[in-house]
């Protein structure tokens, strides 16, 4: 039993704690007894075949999905139906989507400053300075005045990352951030994510980029049919997978 599993069992520590979480889409049981504890600063990569519930899992962490049984506590705030709690958690947890989901009617700069101004009540000038700082960090400060539709996919995804960072989140969730990108743009997004990881932000990332997992992850989680099948440090996970399903999955995605 790893330290993480022990933490999950005892319900102690951890910026994110999921205890016995179950979720159904109608009759379909998408998450089965998920126990997961994430420490501050941990980088976790979640992988698994499609339909295994990995996206649903991280979407539960900022209440984009409801769950029916169990408990999720984010930074000490339990996620219930209480809208106040939900908004409090969401402003601490940044989310990056597969399809970017930038606001097409706003400029890049406005995309970045909107939430700080309206949710955090940051003065406009300060919000713009922060936005420019993070645009610099994702290496596209020159695109600030453009609209999302004028950018490439990779640039849009970097703007989306910067948009989340402008809220100064404690946790970043990435839901297959590179799956909708053309191959030549994947690297520019991963580079930004690696840099972010090195700064110590807590990160949960659903991805099939195994190179990225090896480089930054503290822990790799393998999910199948709504369950966490296996979790381990990347080195062990890739070189010495324990369960048959993990072995099969790894052989399928690493075979070419």
């Amino acid at each position, binding site marked *: 039993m790893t330290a993480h599993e022990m933490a999950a069992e005892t319900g102690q520590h951890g910026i994110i704690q999921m205890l016995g979480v179950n979720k159904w889409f109608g009759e379909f049981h998408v998450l089965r007894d998920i126990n997961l504890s994430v420490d501050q600063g941990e980088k976790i990569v979640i992988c698994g075949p499609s339909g295994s519930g990995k996206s649903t899992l991280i979407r539960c962490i*900022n*209440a*984009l999905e409801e769950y029916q049984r169990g408990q999720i506590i984010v930074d000490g705030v339990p996620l219930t139906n209480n*809208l106040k709690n939900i*908004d*409090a958690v*969401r*402003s601490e*947890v*940044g*989310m990056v*989507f597969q*399809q970017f*989901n*930038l*606001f*097409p*009617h706003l400029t890049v700069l406005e995309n970045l400053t*909107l*939430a700080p101004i*309206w*949710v955090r009540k940051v003065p406009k000038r300060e919000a713009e300075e922060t936005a420019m700082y993070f645009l610099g960090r994702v290496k596209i400060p020159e695109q600030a005045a453009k*609209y*999302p*539709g*004028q950018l490439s996919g990779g640039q849009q995804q970097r703007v989306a990352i910067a*948009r*989340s960072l402008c*809220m100064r989140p404690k946790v970043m969730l990435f839901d297959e951030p590179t799956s909708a990108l053309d191959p030549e743009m994947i690297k520019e997004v991963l580079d930004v994510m690696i840099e972010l990881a090195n700064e110590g932000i807590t990160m949960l990332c659903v991805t099939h980029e195994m190179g990225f997992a090896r480089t930054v992850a503290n822990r790799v989680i393998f999910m199948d049919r709504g369950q966490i099948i296996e979790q381990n440090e990347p080195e062990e996970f890739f070189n010495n997978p324990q369960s048959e399903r993990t072995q099969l999955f790894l052989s399928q995605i690493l075979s070419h």
Partner: protein
Amino acid sequence: MTQVTDTTPQDEGERPPALSVGPLGWMRANLFNTWFNSALTILILWILIETIPPLLDWVIFSAVWGDVGPEPCRAGEGVGACWSFIHEKGRLILFGLYPSAEQWRPMLVMVLFIGLVAASARRELWSRNLAYAWGIGAVVMFVLMYGGVFGMEYVSNTQWGGLPLTLGLSTIGLVVAFPLGVILALGRRSNMPAVRSICVVYIELIRGVPLITVLFMASVLFPLFLPTGVTIDKLLRAQVGMILFAAAYLAEVVRGGLQAIPKGQYEAAESLGLGYWRKMRLIILPQALRISIPPLVNTFIGFFKDTTLVIIIGLFDLLNAAKAALTDREWAGFYMEGYLFCAIIYFVFCYSMSRYSQNLERKLQTGHARR
């Protein structure tokens, strides 16, 4: 073996064939590209040649102009238009039963109104001051229409008519109905069953009956339910009826726009911690309304013309004032002129709305094409 073609293409001397460019090329491609299209082109040309000159002749060359009374028109009846009818009755058509000595007031109101609309059409002028200008303008316009102060004669709103009535009813109607429609549309998509049911019932009920019925109920049935002695102004009742009607239609237009916004936009807004109203106001509605502009303007234009149904409660808007003008024995029979005059006025307003909306659509375009 690898072959590489890495020379810059020479762009000299190569021109497209002469018959594929310029006006000739255009005609060949669009008017005469098949024998069927050629036949259609020739047929349409023939129709134009047959109809345009007589029409111009009737409207302009053989028409009777100026303040000459009905006799010259009667003499040349059927040959040219009788614009002296408009000369004589124009003020009645434009201002209805408004006392003629006081007609400078509705005239001034319209100038003020059109000026404000023109200013509002320029986005660079959108500011708090413009809102104040509208507020003050509205008060001034109402004072001018009613009178009773500053030595102006009091004019009851039962005497209002013509174009100011049409513009007033439709503008106030749309300005109030639009936010109501947005709220109804949001309500219909709400997660709360009670709110959703109320909105659905309202929208379906109102859409299910003709406007004329709503106006009839507002003017005839509604007062029956009021205690004796309490009366609500007739014009106000009609206005409220029109607002309730327009709101139901606008709600469905806005709902169409809301449905077109991808789920990801909602999720992105939520994941940033925006609450329901901020999410709607800052993210969803600006996009939904932009894509709804064409059907919205369609509804606006329809509503603008529907105001003419206030005849049912005895109000003389532009079109009904024209009909009233035609009841003058001396001028009986000049329908074409009267209706053409109204049609032109309606067209000017409707076409302006249409053009402005196209302009607005272009300005709000922010590269949706590439996503």
